[in-house]
């Protein structure tokens, strides 16, 4: 026994720097990844402003961005169509990526995406009712109804999920979310079946698109995205503890219930804002955290921002592709994402780079 103790006393001096070195290496790798993703987002945003159904030269693009006095048809297109559209895409991508990472963390479910928590279904119901009952017909008009629906959806899911013994657990949250989503979608279909005009307006929203999203939509959702991102970053350390199980998290001094509330609040704000702005886009929230996790490991302080950045880059790039492939029309970003993303995701799974949450 004394031999082991002596060894234990002697060894920390040599082992501590080694462990520190390894930790440093991991942190450096994660920082590098975030930096690369930042560059990717900037490039995607630049492409999104520069490329569209109408060919505009780089000179005109630059002039539109730097010279407020210039008012040609081209500069107006850049400023009033492409820049707001890019801003909405950026915010939606950030939101969906971050919300996906949070949702997977809180439900401890690798298939978790914000839709699992009732946000998307609630937003869909809100929009359908707005179209059907009030005759709302523009993206900017949908925003508040989508938001209200998203909020009602999550509040119900959280209330139902917390009702049983032990409060909101990953399992009860996921089950409540699945059940309420089914109910909301049934109501959505009930309205659409009876009202073809609503169906016609709704089908362009439900596919998920950035087309026609102007400055009004961007400004409507911006404060919610900002608030959601702040909450999400505050929530990240707690998620690392919740990942060890609720009992261990409590044992390490983490208050579980408030952490779940903050996390779910962030998911509602982010996913609600993204869905309100461009309709339900499922793929980003599900897949992006898995891809980022393959590089960063399960530490949420890297996973959450990384997922946001990759989500933004992915959404913007998919939108650019959608504008280019179907000129002079365009393919909606939700469709492009699924068409391009699904094979990519399958390839990742086959390479076994993906880990569960």
């Amino acid at each position, binding site marked *: *026994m004394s031999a*082991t*103790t002596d060894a*234990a*006393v002697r*060894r*920390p001096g040599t*082992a*501590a720097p*080694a*462990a*520190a070195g*390894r*930790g440093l290496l991991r942190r450096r790798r994660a920082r590098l990844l975030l930096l690369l993703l930042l560059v990717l987002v900037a490039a995607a945003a630049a492409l999104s402003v520069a490329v569209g159904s109408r060919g505009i030269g780089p000179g005109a693009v630059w002039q539109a961005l730097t010279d407020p006095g210039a008012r040609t048809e081209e500069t107006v297109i850049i400023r009033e169509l492409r820049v707001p559209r890019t801003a909405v895409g950026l915010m939606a991508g950030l939101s969906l990526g971050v919300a996906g990472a949070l949702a997977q963390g809180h439900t*401890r479910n690798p298939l978790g995406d914000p839709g699992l928590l009732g946000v998307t279904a609630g937003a869909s119901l809100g929009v359908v009712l707005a179209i059907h009952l009030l005759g709302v017909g523009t993206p900017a008009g949908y925003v508040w109804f989508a938001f209200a629906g998203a909020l009602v959806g999550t509040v119900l899911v959280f209330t139902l999920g917390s009702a049983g*013994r032990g409060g909101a657990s990953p399992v009860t949250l996921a089950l409540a979310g699945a059940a309420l989503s089914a109910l909301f979608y049934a109501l959505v279909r009930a309205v659409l079946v009876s009202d073809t005009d609503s169906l016609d307006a709704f089908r362009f929203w439900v596919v998920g698109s950035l087309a026609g999203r102007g400055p009004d939509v961007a400004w409507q959702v911006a404060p919610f995205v900002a608030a959601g991102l702040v909450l999400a970053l505050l929530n990240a*350390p707690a998620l*690392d*503890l919740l*990942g*060890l*199980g609720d*009992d*261990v998290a*409590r*044992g*390490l*001094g*983490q*208050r579980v219930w408030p952490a779940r509330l903050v996390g779910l609040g962030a998911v509602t704000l982010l996913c609600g804002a993204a869905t309100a702005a461009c309709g339900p886009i499922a793929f980003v929230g599900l897949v992006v955290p898995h891809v980022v*996790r393959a590089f960063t*490991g*399960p*530490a949420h302080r890297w996973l959450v921002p990384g997922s946001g950045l990759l989500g933004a880059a992915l959404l913007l790039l998919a939108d650019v592709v959608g504008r280019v492939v179907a000129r002079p029309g365009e393919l909606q970003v939700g469709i492009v994402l699924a068409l391009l993303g699904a094979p990519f995701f399958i390839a990742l799974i086959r390479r076994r780079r993906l*880990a*569960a*949450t």
Partner: protein
Amino acid sequence: MTLDAVTSTRPRDGTVRLAAESVSLAYDDRVVVRDLDLQLADGSFTAIVGPNGCGKSTLLRALGRLLRPVSGQVLLDGRAIARTPTREVARVLGLLPQTPVAPEGLTVGDLVARGRHPHQSWLRQWSRDDEAAVAEALVWTDMADLADRPVDELSGGQRQRAWISMALAQGTDLLLLDEPTTYLDLSHQIDVLELVARLHAERGRTVVVVLHDLNLAARYAQRLVAMDGGALVASGSPHEVLTEQLLAEVFDLEARVVPDPVVGSPMVVPVRRIR
């Protein structure tokens, strides 16, 4: 942080660190533990034993503040644990639930580092002390070489060591373990219990462990607490508690109790189940 800082500096004068005062515990309407009193002294090593469903794990959850009693209270250092902030409790009392699961891909080093959470705050993030405590916990549990390995790729025995290493890095005086030997083969059960015994003997930890194996409980713990049907039926040294009469009454087991040939603690040799 040096070895001394992690080691408990409290004197072992037998003061009560953790106590249950006429505690009743229930899940929904089902009462599992009724009106139970228990006192755990500083520096003690206690094993809670009893048949399946006797409420021993439930009692441990209440002692660790994971379950709020429906009546009575749990006192930590004389203070009602339910009214003590979670983080404050976590600096004094560490706990490991039965077969905890780490997220896929989480490395041993990162798991152990999470043990430092109660010592961190927004103002005081990861520090040199934390780094030293983690490195030391890894060395002490013989996990330093595996620090970069994902926990889910380890063997059962190594995995349990990793979790104990996390609890060690937490640096608490008290440690509650719920069946730490579940699913381990005998040599790894011994390995884990030796480690826990060293935490007690060399690091001054006050240990409470729920154990199924009576012979191992008798060998490693100083004190046995036997439970049956949600009540405490016997408490004392292994010799006092592990009697043929108690085995018959509590475990429905006809058995001989003989001295363990290695250390002399009472050893149960089962004969047959009493119907």
